[in-house]
C-alpha cells in the first residue's frame, strides 16, 4: 500500500484516540439512565443540571478556582521578578536556581505531595487550604518562570536604558516598557498555571482534608460512592471551559506562540 493511503488512516486513528474519550464523555453525560454508561440510554439534561445541585461540587469548584487563580497570581508575583533577575543580572548559580525552580515539574506529584505533607504541613500544622495554596503555587512557579523567562530573553534590555534616559526611573521603566512587552508571555503563563493547578490530582490528594478538597479529588470520591452520569457531565463542562479559555487565548494573544 502507498503512503497516500496510510496517512489518512493514521490521522483518523490519532484523532479517534484524542477526541474519542471526549465524545464518549459528552454522550454519557447526556444519558437519561441512572448509571454511567455508553452508549447513553436515552437523551436528557438531568445530569448536567444535577451537577449544579450537588453541594460538594459547588464547594470544591470554589476551592479549585481559588487555588488556580490565587496560586497562579502568587506564582507570577514570585516568578516575574525571579525571571527578570535571572535574565538581566549575573546571578551566581543561575543555572542551579533554574533547575530548582523547575523541579516540581520533574519530580512526580505523588512524591511532592507526600513530602509536603510529611515535612511541612504536619510539623508546622498548616491549615488545609493554606497548605494546598502553597503546594499549588510551587507547582505553577516552574511554568511561570519558564514562560516569562522566554519572553524576557526575546526582549532587548537596552530599551530599559532608553526609557531611563527619557526620564523613567528604573522601576518605572520595568512597568512602562518591560511589562507591556512580556504581557503575552505573562498571560500564557497564567493560562498554563491555571490549567496545571485545576487538573492537579496527586499533590491535592495528599493535602486535601475534611471539608476542603479540590474539584478533581471531589469527583474521585463522588465516584466511589455514586456511579451516576453527573461526573461525566461535570467532566464535559470542565472540558468546554478549558476549550473556551484556550480558544480566547489563541484568538486574542496567539497563545500557541508561547507554549
Amino acid at each position, binding site marked *: 500500500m502507498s503512503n497516500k493511503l496510510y496517512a489518512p488512516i493514521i490521522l483518523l486513528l490519532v484523532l479517534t484516540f484524542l477526541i474519542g474519550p471526549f465524545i464518549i464523555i459528552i454522550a454519557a453525560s447526556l444519558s437519561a439512565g441512572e448509571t454511567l454508561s455508553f452508549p447513553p440510554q436515552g437523551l436528557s439534561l438531568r445530569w448536567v443540571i444535577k451537577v449544579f445541585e450537588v453541594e460538594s461540587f459547588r464547594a470544591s469548584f470554589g476551592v479549585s478556582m481559588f487555588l488556580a487563580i490565587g496560586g497562579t497570581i502568587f506564582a507570577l508575583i514570585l516568578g516575574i521578578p525571579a525571571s527578570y533577575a535571572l535574565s538581566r543580572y549575573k546571578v551566581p548559580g543561575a543555572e542551579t536556581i533554574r533547575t530548582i525552580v523547575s523541579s516540581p515539574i520533574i519530580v512526580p506529584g505523588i512524591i511532592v505531595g507526600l513530602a509536603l505533607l510529611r515535612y511541612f504541613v504536619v510539623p508546622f500544622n498548616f491549615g488545609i487550604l493554606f497548605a494546598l495554596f502553597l503546594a499549588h503555587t510551587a507547582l505553577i512557579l516552574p511554568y511561570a518562570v519558564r514562560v516569562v523567562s522566554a519572553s524576557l530573553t526575546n526582549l*532587548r534590555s537596552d530599551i530599559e*536604558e532608553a*526609557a531611563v*534616559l527619557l526620564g*523613567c526611573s528604573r522601576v518605572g521603566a520595568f512597568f512602562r*516598557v518591560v511589562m507591556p512587552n512580556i504581557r503575552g508571555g505573562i498571560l500564557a503563563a497564567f493560562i498554563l498555571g491555571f490549567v496545571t493547578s485545576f487538573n492537579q490530582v496527586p499533590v491535592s490528594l495528599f493535602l486535601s482534608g475534611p471539608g476542603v478538597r479540590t474539584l478533581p479529588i471531589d469527583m474521585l470520591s463522588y465516584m466511589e460512592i455514586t456511579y451516576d452520569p453527573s461526573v461525566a457531565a461535570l467532566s464535559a463542562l470542565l472540558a468546554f471551559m478549558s476549550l473556551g479559555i484556550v480558544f480566547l487565548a489563541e484568538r486574542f494573544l496567539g497563545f500557541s506562540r508561547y507554549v
Partner: protein
Amino acid sequence: MSDSRFLCLEKMTLSYGKNVAVPDMDLDIGKGELVALLGPSGCGKTTTMRAIAGLMEPASGKIVLDGTDITRVPANKRPVGLVFQSYALFPHLNVYENVAFGLKLMGVKGSELDKRVIDGLKTVGLSQYATRKPAELSGGQQQRVSLARSMVMEPKVLLLDEPLSNLDARLRLEMRTELQRVQKESGVTMIFVTHDQVEALAMADRIIVMLDGHIEQIGTPEDIYNHPVSDFVADFVGFENVFERVGNTIKTANGDVAIAGDIDDATKGLAWRPSMVTLGDGPFEGTVRGTSFAGGTREYLLDTPLGQIKAECDASLPAHDFGAVLKFDLPVHKAAQLARTGSL
C-alpha cells in the same frame, strides 16, 4: 563657563569592578560641537559615552555640563539624549508614541505634545509613518525615530552610539548628511562613538582618538588625517608604513637603516601612507609580493630589507608583476613626523 567648556570631563575614572576602563580622563567639549569619539573596540569610547549619559557612575572625577556638576545626577534627570546602536525603540508603541514617550513623562500634554512630536517626526522626514510599529520600519527609519525621540527632549548633549554601523553603504551616506543637518539646524552638542575613521573624518568638527582608555589625540579631521601624533593614530588613519626613528636612522626588523632628510629633534617616529612611497626610483629595493587594483590606483606589497612596505601608484602606469624587483624611496619631507611611538 565659556562655550568651549560646555561639557567637561575632569579626571574622570571609569571602572568595571577592579578593571579600570578609563583612567583620569580630561576632556572639554564646546557648545554646538559635533565630536567623534574614535577608537578600536575596547578603547573605552562606549564606556565614556555611557558615563556622560549617566548609565555608569565614575569611580572618581567629575562631569560638568553647562556649568553644573552632573556627576551624581541620575540618568533620568540628565539633559542628555542617547541614540542606541540598536535604536532601542519600544516595540509595543508606534512611532508617534515612541517619540512622545519622554515628553509625556516630562508632563507635556495635549496640543503642545502633539506639536512637538509632529515637529520631531518632520525633522527626520517620518511624519507619514506616525502610526507604524517599529517592526514595520526599515533600519534607517528606526534610526530616525530613535533620533527624533531623543531630539524632541531638547537635550543639551546628544550622544550617538555607532550611528551608522547597522546601515548599508547607501543609507550610511544619507544618514551622515542627515545627522549633520539636524545637528547644524538645532545647534545641539553632538558626540558620536565610532570605530570607523572614514565616518569620523567625514562627519565630525573634531575627533577624539582613544586607545586603551586614554585619549591618544584630539584634533580636526585635517589634523588627524595629516598630522597624526603617534604610531597608533598614524596606522589608524592609513599611514601603513610606520617606523621608529633614532637620529638619522629608522628602526627596522633588520637593524637600523639610514635615511636622508630633515627631521625634527622631537620626532620619535616616521610614517608614510602607501601613496607617499616613491616607486621606481630610490635607494631601497623590494620584491613585489602582492598587488591589487583599486580603481584609480594600484597597490603593491613589497618584501624589503626594511620589512614589508605598502606602496601605491597611479593605475595608469604599467603594472609590475609578482616577483619583480622595484626600487623605491621613503621621502622624509612627505612623512608624518610622530611625537610618540610605542602604542602600536
